[in-house]
């Protein structure tokens, strides 16, 4: 299982774009990059997943360079409700989710 490394915490203000970078130097060929969001006292929630280049959905964008050794989760125009812990995981099909420490994002008014 690929080990991922991401910042422990980040601060932002409402309306800003937030970029959280994740390092996964040992990612396997068949691993996908998957991001989850967790609010206090709730279970993690799937945000986005990608293999390479760029993926965008209604919540976020995910950028993965050609070497796939890192990825960046981009949250456009964050609001207070985006305050949460964000987890980056490298996951193969049928694999288990193994969580790291995640990035605690704090959005301030």
């Amino acid at each position, binding site marked *: 299982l690929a080990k991922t490394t991401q910042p422990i915490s980040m601060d932002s203000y409402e309306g800003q774009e937030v970029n959280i970078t994740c390092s996964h130097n040992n990612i396997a060929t068949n691993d996908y990059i*998957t991001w989850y969001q967790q609010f206090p*006292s*709730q*279970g*993690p929630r799937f945000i986005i997943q990608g293999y390479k280049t760029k993926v965008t959905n209604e919540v976020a964008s995910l950028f993965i360079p050609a070497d796939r050794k890192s990825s960046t989760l981009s949250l456009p125009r964050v609001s207070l409700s985006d305050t949460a812990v964000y987890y980056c995981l490298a996951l193969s*099909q049928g694999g*288990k989710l193994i969580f790291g*420490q995640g990035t605690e994002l704090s959005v301030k008014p």
Partner: protein
Amino acid sequence: DVKVTQSSRYLVKRTGEKVFLECVQDMDHENMFWYRQDPGLGLRLIYFSYDVKMKEKGDIPEGYSVSREKKERFSLILESASTNQTSMYLCASSTGQGYGYTFGSGTRLTVV
């Protein structure tokens, strides 16, 4: 949307008690998982199951067992609860493809 329901939101048990945490999912998912979450330690995988009556140990199975008699239900059992098992317990399910896990809201267990 897939729904994963954990039977209790909060639970207080005494040391030495046998504790059952129940989890039910409603989308016919093959895979089900139990995690515990503790401050500073993140989410750790306790047990998982890829099919009925099948179980696999995760990273921290000691002191726990599981039961999966029906596809939709996955139970976590604390054979003899101890204070170091005080934690938030999270159940999750996923399809066989292994992407897009759905988590329950969690059970906060306190062992006194």
